[in-house]
């Protein structure tokens, strides 16, 4: 390989894994956008969905066309349950309290998955072979990488349209900016929040299902992607959906470049350096406009 090919290869690899981070960043941004709550359980909600999909595919032997939609349905149920059973129950909720509830939720899901499926890591079958690739010159791109990027772009595009043009989308924005006024204007803010959680859970689950075939399905599988998705969301500005996807892609590319050219051992530290840098230099992120609440 000459000097250029590895660079291109690393860029392609970074963009594809960044797509998965982007999906998580989108999921985080949706919940943040509507409630200013950072959902620490996002990664493990995706993890438990991957285990659920595995259980449908392998022990039960369901075909992919049935198992994957069922898994997404399961993810939405988890999202709805999280909002309805946990967050909504908070007495005199403030943002910090709600964030801590999501932390507790993460521990519950992690504990449940460890107990239910934890004994052995699992190998996730998938409808496209993870080793099928396109070869362009010296460049190798797997079908799974292409699919991941395509899904991320499609979801981001769909969301952009949804928030711009649909009534529900606008209602979600209004709910974040001022819940009381939104309610006075006739928006059913509780339903909006429930919907945000359902939507975010489904999008996060897509990331989990796309990441699972690249390694093993195990209780720890989403820790690293979750943190990187978080870095991506912060980078993009937390409330900006295009920003979230862009942030995820940048994190994927930067950490791969860093891993290849600087150090593999410290590769996973890069996203945190990005978070600190962004919070110091441009706290509203790359694409979000800083929304200042007027008192």
């Amino acid at each position, binding site marked *: *390989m000459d000097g250029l090919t*590895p660079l291109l*290869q*690393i860029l392609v*690899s*970074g963009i594809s*894994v960044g797509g998965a981070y982007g999906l998580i960043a989108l999921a985080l941004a949706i919940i943040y956008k509507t409630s200013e709550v950072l959902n620490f359980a996002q990664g493990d909600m995706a993890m438990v969905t991957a285990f659920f999909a595995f259980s449908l595919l392998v022990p039960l032997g369901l075909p992919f066309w049935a198992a994957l939609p069922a898994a997404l349905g399961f993810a939405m149920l988890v999202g709805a349950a999280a909002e309805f059973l946990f967050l909504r129950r908070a007495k005199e909720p403030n943002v910090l309290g709600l964030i801590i509830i999501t932390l507790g939720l993460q521990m519950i899901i992690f504990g449940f998955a*460890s*107990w239910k499926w*934890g*004994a*052995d*890591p*699992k*190998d996730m*079958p998938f409808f496209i072979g*993870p*080793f099928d*690739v396109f*070869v362009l010159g010296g460049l*190798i791109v*797997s079908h*799974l*990488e292409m699919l991941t990027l395509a899904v991320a772009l499609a979801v981001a595009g769909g969301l952009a349209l949804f928030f711009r043009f649909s009534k529900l989308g606008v209602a979600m924005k209004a709910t974040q900016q001022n819940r009381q006024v939104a309610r006075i204007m006739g928006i059913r803010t509780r339903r909006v929040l429930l919907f945000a959680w359902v939507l975010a859970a489904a999008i996060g689950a897509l990331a989990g299902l796309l*990441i699972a*075939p*690249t*390694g*093993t399905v*195990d*209780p*720890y*599988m989403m*820790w*690293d*992607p979750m*943190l990187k998705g978080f870095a991506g969301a912060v980078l993009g500005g937390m409330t900006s959906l295009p920003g979230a996807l862009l942030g995820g892609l940048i994190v*994927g590319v930067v*950490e*791969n*470049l*860093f*891993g*290849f050219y600087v*150090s*593999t*051992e*410290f*590769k*996973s*530290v890069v996203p945190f350096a990005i978070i600190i840098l962004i919070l110091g230099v441009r706290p509203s992120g790359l694409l979000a406009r800083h929304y200042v609440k007027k008192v």
Partner: protein
Amino acid sequence: MKFLKSLAVAAAAVVALGAGRADAGNVPGVTDTEIHIGQWGPQTGPAAPWGAVARGTEVLFQMINDAGGIHGRKIVYHSFDDQYNPARTKAGVKELVEGGPGIFAFVGGVGSATGMAVKDYLNERGIVWVGPAAGSLQWITPPQKNLFAVYPLYVEEAKVLVDYLVTQEKKSKIAILYANDEYGKNGLQGAKGQLARHGLEPVIEVGVGRADRDLKSHVLKLKQSGADTVIMWVNPTHAVITLKTAAAMKFAPQWVSSSTLSDAPLMTAISGGLWKNVIFTSFSELPSSQSPLMLDYRKAFDKYAKKGERWGVFFLAGIAFAEPLVEGLKRAGRDLTHDSLIAALESLKDFQGIMGRIGYGPGERQGQKEVFVAKTDETGLKVIQLSDWMRPN
């Protein structure tokens, strides 16, 4: 004044004598008919596959008890689930040691961090601990009177692999992929040192961060280095991600791994069948071995093991780590104290059960120093032994 001093000395002597006598007649965990032995190990949680170690030991003890026990005493085995969590290990060990009849000795115990959490506690009480289930240098640096390591050191294991790869397989372009922790760095240190002895150096060293899930840049580095052989000193998940990523990048070197990844059926299952033709080290006979002792254990497994248990390397390791302890208990005789057991263990020279030869001595606490090299076949399920027991050159 002089009188007072000698009185004090005499009093101290009497107290010491009394204490000594009480100890000889009343060793915690030993009664006329029982020896109490403990072990921790994860039975639930993410490290649960290694829980088979503690269950393997149980079958060995049942087999011994059914054959009449040791010098008229039966082994009473106390194992508990610590979920691979050092805090739980410590709490559980304390509970066993300080409650009920006490514990005479511990055996096995999965994990470096879990073991480190109780190492000092056991040392202070002089409780003998044989065969921690990890090849860590921490057990023997410095050697402790009561702690007898069995598992061969990762450093030595890596050296044997390099010897084999260089002399038998004629490999010279060897890369090392290592976990960025004590385990991985021990492997790196051993492999690098031994390559140097052969006048070689690794074509590349690639470290893996603990939480990393995306190893594309790692694999691309390995591929670009021109390596034809990659030695992996990583955990099972990272090994699987590496092999899958490499398969997608059309990179197919000779994969080589440490004994921690020697459970071929497990690795094949979780890697989607990629664990084929992998060379690795083994510290005990293979599960398929037909040696007479192994066949006896196999019979015990059929008789005592719970339904659904698998005759795999972790289960076998639980038997293997306890063999030297059982031999020590036999040699110590009916008069069983910590000191008599330690003396008996120190008398072990070239003792062999289903592991390599094991020997201790005063100040020598690393029992086994040899491993052999094996390889999975085309299916990834069958294992072929490639060498005899080897020590590094």
